[in-house]
């Protein structure tokens, strides 16, 4: 074996990337070069946060999984165009939030009516249709279920621009700077939207918050 052959062999066998220790940028760069393991690590890191984010935006688990997968498909297909000017987290959340917002707008156009909102209360707001459960539920479990439904419904009732900012901040724990980058807004606008969303939620959920007077 001549020198050239040895050199070629050394070049062909790339040192394997330690995917667990690699940064997002390193993983994306490796995935761009065809490293499937690196892309799998990207998926492993973000599959749950993205699924949770979309779920809290749409309040639909199956749809959240579908859109989370679509997010990764888009990352995969456009990985060659990814520019490392900002964090990968910002990049992938931007894709996911755009998909979620598109879905919210589609629903608005279709005027999807949930089975849980076909009845209106005295204030004109939809009230939950709660079919009677024949099983005897412990009181704590029933209260917890009611709180969960009320919270999800309150988030879902927020206008999409407030909802996205609030979920990213108070549920996904992103910084104002990151949120501004994801949504391509100024930090001032983000802060304003988050404050507005919190006030709206406080109006809707005040009775469920600790220290609130019992309803």
């Amino acid at each position, binding site marked *: 074996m001549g020198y050239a052959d040895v050199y070629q062999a050394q070049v062909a066998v790339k040192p394997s990337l330690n995917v667990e220790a690699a940064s997002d940028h390193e993983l994306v760069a490796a995935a761009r070069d065809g490293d499937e393991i690196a892309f799998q690590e990207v998926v492993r890191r973000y*599959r749950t946060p993205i*699924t949770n984010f979309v779920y809290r935006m749409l309040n639909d688990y199956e749809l959240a*999984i579908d859109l*989370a997968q679509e997010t990764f498909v888009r990352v*995969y*297909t456009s990985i060659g165009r990814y520019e490392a000017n900002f964090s990968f987290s910002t990049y992938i959340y931007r894709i996911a939030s755009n998909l979620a917002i598109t879905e919210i707008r589609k629903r608005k156009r279709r005027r999807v009516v949930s089975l849980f909102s076909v009845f209106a209360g005295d204030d004109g707001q939809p009230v939950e249709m709660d079919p009677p459960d024949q099983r005897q539920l412990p009181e704590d479990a029933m209260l917890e279920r009611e709180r969960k439904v009320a919270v999800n419904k309150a988030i879902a009732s927020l206008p999409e621009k407030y909802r996205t900012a609030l979920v990213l901040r108070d549920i996904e724990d992103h910084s104002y700077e990151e949120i501004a980058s994801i949504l391509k807004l100024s930090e001032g606008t983000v802060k304003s939207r988050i404050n507005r969303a*919190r006030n709206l939620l406080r109006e809707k*959920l005040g009775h469920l*918050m600790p220290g609130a007077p019992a309803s």
Partner: protein
Amino acid sequence: MTCSKHQRIIDDIGDLDRLPPESARHLDACRTCSEFARNLVALRALLNEQGRVTAPSDFDARLARRIRDVRTPAAPAGVLEWFAVPQRMLAGAAAFALVAAGAFVVATYQAGSHVQDSGQVATNRSVPPREPLVEQPAVATIDPTPDLPGVTGTSHNNTLSHPVLSRPGNRRLQGVSRNTGQDEAMILVQDSAGARIVNVPRVLVGAERIVPVPESDASVASLDDRMAF
């Protein structure tokens, strides 16, 4: 430090027990910031009470299939797949109904026209139709017919160069022209009465007068009548 900055710190840290001492002291003194902190912590606790949903165990496998599908472009959708969309199905049904209605109208119109034509035919058929003229091939070479009685003079073969127009069922010219050396010609005629020789003052072949004769010639007229080819 202003209230706004303290609130930003509270917002960023979230946990009131981990606030920097300056902000913690401010909270104790400022009712507005204290209320802001209490509301924020309570709201976040409520929002995160139900925990985070996690991706299902088959997430990666499903994603791998999806990416594989993206890599290999799907085959062009068939007609049935195209019609699977309800709006398209309705549009297709409407187009089919339109075409069917058009075909029905055309068929109805043609049927009416046919009935009208049939009536016309029936009317025409009340008068026996005149059979159309058909072109017959040129009559073959004339047999000199030396055995025919009463035939005199020099016989010679004569080939018709003109097609003869006749009507089916009419008498047919079998032979033509035996030149008698006079101003007359003899024509062999065969019809239901049998074959016979007819003398004619000029040679006539079929409907065409080979030798022009005056229109006033009665013998030619009678010959035309008898030999209406």
